[in-house]
């Protein structure tokens, strides 16, 4: 379909592109080129302008300023947008959003091919091929609504590709998918695009998906903050990351914050990004500040998120918080800690089961959360995390099993439990038509705080959320990250010692997420608040002291993040990154050769291998047979995603597959 030799124009060219919604600027002055046959990524938080830009390129939305060319055709009217539409495929945001839930897989594909006027014979051939490649053939007769999230997205992809477009535009195709499905989706996409010579413009909210793209653009507040290949972007801000582990974490953190702008807590580690320094110098400078009593101090590879935040700082897009986090303490907390003592389990789930009709959402879940610990439940949408939390806080009665919160049985004393916990639900659960202070006062009243205490807590929350001065603003006008902080504040209004947080950071930008985690860290360390948090961001899991991985209603692993990674490294060896000239074919070849955990990341292949030397030797051999040039093999640290994928695969191989 893509005409060769049509000229050197890129598939998409944007110049000073601007899109407004009323007075709101969604995208302002973006320049961007998507080359033919590349996978171009747009990465950024919700509301960064990714969707607006993609919709304009797909020709389904007008824009206010700048120019847009698709395959060399200038899009400046509805007519010109129509003229390129047959060469485009667009998949909107949301699982299976472009599909019809009551139609079967077959019927959905047929509908798309007919509406795109694909000749019947060709349509049948393409359908067969695409179904095979996405491994959906066995499910052809199944209604779309009964497919898993990953299968829905693959079906969406098939329907988008059935008329063989030259350019596909995929808006957050992997949001909310479990890591296994996500990997599968990326692999399928890479192979399909390569085979059909299709260009792709793909957006994502996950920073760790950057390596999947050939080139990418980092979005924030309607601007492209950086553009280039993943390597180029990583080099955009020179500097080095230093990690250290210490006994006195809070004090060390406070000290570091005075000297460095970019300090973050991640579980038992402190991470410092030292701008403009090389590794040695950075380690030295951090060492000077932390002084004696450091258990471990070394440099570590920076992540895209570190670079992203450094870039935003450089461009002055981050409003620095005026005060350090650790100087805010509620005077009542330590006294209570004295009273109730330390140690012991604050939350315990024992064999919790919950059925919805014939569907088992939670299947025998047990875990223990110690006092003052940050405990993470990590899993995809639909893994059963929220259902488990809802049972513990008394919103849902369990089908079987029981649980204890604050030493009380959730079956016998749900009201006593409710008085002692704070809870933040998945959706923003404050009143958007009330002001900041009205919301806080409402919850203060609900928890029965008297006037004096209510005033004291209101001040504390305003300070913690940095909302002083915005007391009388309606919450609907607050940005996402600030709203979430306020919701956290309201959940803390009565000073509970146990907090349940259900995906609190979903859709929040990285800076907002860091601030949020800063607060959680302080609550946990200084005030011994026990925190149970769910998330589908693999990266966030590393902030937790302890983790339980959930998949298909079951817990597949339960340990500290470091322990999990260590175990995987011990079991399967390290993670190897293979750089070749033809990644998609190399991946096929390595899979056939029997390597474990093979996945494609842009131009690189990742795989797990116990013995690096032997593995490298074999890789060379396999690739040489296929005439694929090997550029480099290097060792990489194991990620949480690798851990998750490994456990799920192991569970499914053992026949423990639940759906």
């Amino acid at each position: 379909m893509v005409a060769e030799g049509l000229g050197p124009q890129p598939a998409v060219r944007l110049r000073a592109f601007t899109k407004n919604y009323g007075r709101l600027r969604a995208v302002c002055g973006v320049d961007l080129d998507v080359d033919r046959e590349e996978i171009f990524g747009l990465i950024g938080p919700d509301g960064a302008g990714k969707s607006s830009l993609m919709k304009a390129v797909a020709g389904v939305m007008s824009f206010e300023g700048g120019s847009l060319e698709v395959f060399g055709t200038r899009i400046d009217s509805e007519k010109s947008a129509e003229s390129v539409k047959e060469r485009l495929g667009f998949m909107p945001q949301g699982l299976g959003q472009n599909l019809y839930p009551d139609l079967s897989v077959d019927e959905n594909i047929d509908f798309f091919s007919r509406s795109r006027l694909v000749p019947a014979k060709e349509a049948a051939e393409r359908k067969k091929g695409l179904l095979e490649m996405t491994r959906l053939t066995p499910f052809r007769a199944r209604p779309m609504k009964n497919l898993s999230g990953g299968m829905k997205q693959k079906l969406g992809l098939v329907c988008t590709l059935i008329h063989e477009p030259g350019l596909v535009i995929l808006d957050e195709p992997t949001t909310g998918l479990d890591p296994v499905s996500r990997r599968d989706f990326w692999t399928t996409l890479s192979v399909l695009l390569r085979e059909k010579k299709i260009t792709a413009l793909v957006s994502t909210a996950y920073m760790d998906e950057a390596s999947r793209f050939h080139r990418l653009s980092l979005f924030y507040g309607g601007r492209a903050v950086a553009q280039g290949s993943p390597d180029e972007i990583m080099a955009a801000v020179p500097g080095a990351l230093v990690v250290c582990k210490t006994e006195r974490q809070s004090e060390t953190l406070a000290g570091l914050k005075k000297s460095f702008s970019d300090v973050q807590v991640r579980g038992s580690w402190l991470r410092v990004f030292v701008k403009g320094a090389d590794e040695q110098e950075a380690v030295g400078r951090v060492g000077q500040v932390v002084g004696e009593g450091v258990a471990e101090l070394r440099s570590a590879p920076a992540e895209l998120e570190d670079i992203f935040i450094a870039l935003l700082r450089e461009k002055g897009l981050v409003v620095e918080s005026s005060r350090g986090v650790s100087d805010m303490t509620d005077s009542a907390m330590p006294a209570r800690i004295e009273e109730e003592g330390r140690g012991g389990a604050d939350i315990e789930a024992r064999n919790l089961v919950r059925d919805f009709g014939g569907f088992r959402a939670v299947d025998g879940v047990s875990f223990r959360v110690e006092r003052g610990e940050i405990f993470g439940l990590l899993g995809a949408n639909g893994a059963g995390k929220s259902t488990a939390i809802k049972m513990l806080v008394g919103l849902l009665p369990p089908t079987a099993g029981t649980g204890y919160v604050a030493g009380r049985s959730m079956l016998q004393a749900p009201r006593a439990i409710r008085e002692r916990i704070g809870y933040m639900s998945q959706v923003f659960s404050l009143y958007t038509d009330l002001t900041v202070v009205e919301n806080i006062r409402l919850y203060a009243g609900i928890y029965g705080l008297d006037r004096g205490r209510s005033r004291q807590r209101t001040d504390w929350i305003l300070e913690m959320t940095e909302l002083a001065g915005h007391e009388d603003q309606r919450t609907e006008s607050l940005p996402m990250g600030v709203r979430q902080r306020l919701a956290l504040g309201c959940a803390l209004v009565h000073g509970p010692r146990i907090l349940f947080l259900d995906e609190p950071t979903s859709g929040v930008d990285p800076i907002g997420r860091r601030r949020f985690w800063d607060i959680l860290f302080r609550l946990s360390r200084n005030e011994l608040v026990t925190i149970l948090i769910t998330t589908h961001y693999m990266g966030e899991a590393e902030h937790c002291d302890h983790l339980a991985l959930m998949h298909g209603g079951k817990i597949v692993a339960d340990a500290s993040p470091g322990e999990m990674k260590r175990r995987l490294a011990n079991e399967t060896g390290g993670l190897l990154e293979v750089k070749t000239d033809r990644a998609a074919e190399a991946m096929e070849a390595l899979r056939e050769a029997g390597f474990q955990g093979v996945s494609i990341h842009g131009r690189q292949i990742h795989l797990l291998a116990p013995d690096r030397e032997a593995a490298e030797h074999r890789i060379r051999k396999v690739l040489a047979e296929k005439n694929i040039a090997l550029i480099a093999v290097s060792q990489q640290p194991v990620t949480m995603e690798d851990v998750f994928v490994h456990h799920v695969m192991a569970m499914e191989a053992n026949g423990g597959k639940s759906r």
Partner: protein
Amino acid sequence: MTALLVWLRRLRVMTVKELLQFSRDGALILFMVYAFTFDIYLAGSGVHFELKSAATVIHDSDRSSASRELIDQFRPPSFRIEGTIERGAEGTRLLDEGKAMVVLDIPPRFQESLLSGAPTDLQIRVDASNSVLGLFAANFCSRIAESFGFQAGLKRLGVAPDRVKYLPRVRNAYRVWFNPNQNDTWFMSIAELLNIITLFAILLPACAMVREKERGTVEQLLVTPLTSFQIMFPKVLAMAAVILAGTTMSLFGVLRYCFHVPFRGSILLFYAVTLLYVFTTAGLGLVISTLARNLGQAGMMAIITYGPMIFLSGAWSPPEAMPRFIRTMMLLSPLHYYIDASYGVLLKGAGINLLWRSILGMGALGGTLFTLGVWRMRRQFE
């Protein structure tokens, strides 16, 4: 003691929250002001159940002095002669097309029969598609025919008009009580006020609750120590305050100021009865809110229950005219009690000694509905 204080504090903050949210909803406030003032004014001044200028067509096959005398009885303001027709079929057509409401057929030899003393027929066809007006027209027509026949009979007997008074007759003199001028404005405006109160008493609490479900804020409330009662009751409390404010606007701004409705009984008693009614009906709204998943569904369910409530209330036809089982079912419509009570207080000046049955009925119904709503509250999420 402190437990009670905390309980009251919770009730207060939740009620204040509802009122604040209401005050921020400009469109809703506008709709309420409209409904409690202009809408009631329209109902009171615009709708009249009286026969006025009914289009009448004459098919006179006799063309005699007697037939002309009869036709002369159909005069304004009740009737308006639209013309005469030659064939009976034409009358049917005019009725079908809605161009005539009454068709009067006078048979040939009408006068001859009257004079000879033979019985004669008269045909009057009435369009009763609007049943109330049709009934009025038919009644009116038959009264005209009756008195015309009576007069003709007297003439035939040779009784001189001045000697009629010596004939034995039952005199039919009636006095209209409570609304002596038979002023529809009073009846209609009060009826509309009761309808509006009913509508808002169902809708406001139901919508307030369903909105919380839609936005997910209810989940946050459910994990606080609030009981189901503490979550639901403040909504009723706040909305009752809002509705009473609207009722005040309507009572003094429209009923008294524009229509001079006499408030014969105690206004305080009327407020008390209204408050009880709002609680009762709000209970129904809350039950709806536990069944509906979104505002659309809640609205549909409110409309579905609103209809039968009005049919079963006795507002449109007296209970005595209904079949027995429907009369029993009327005991389930809170509006039935409320109409009794409010007409009683406003027009008849009735006191609590006459209304206790209605008040008791409403209370029992409201208590049951509210309990059902509270019982469903937590269960609906499980």
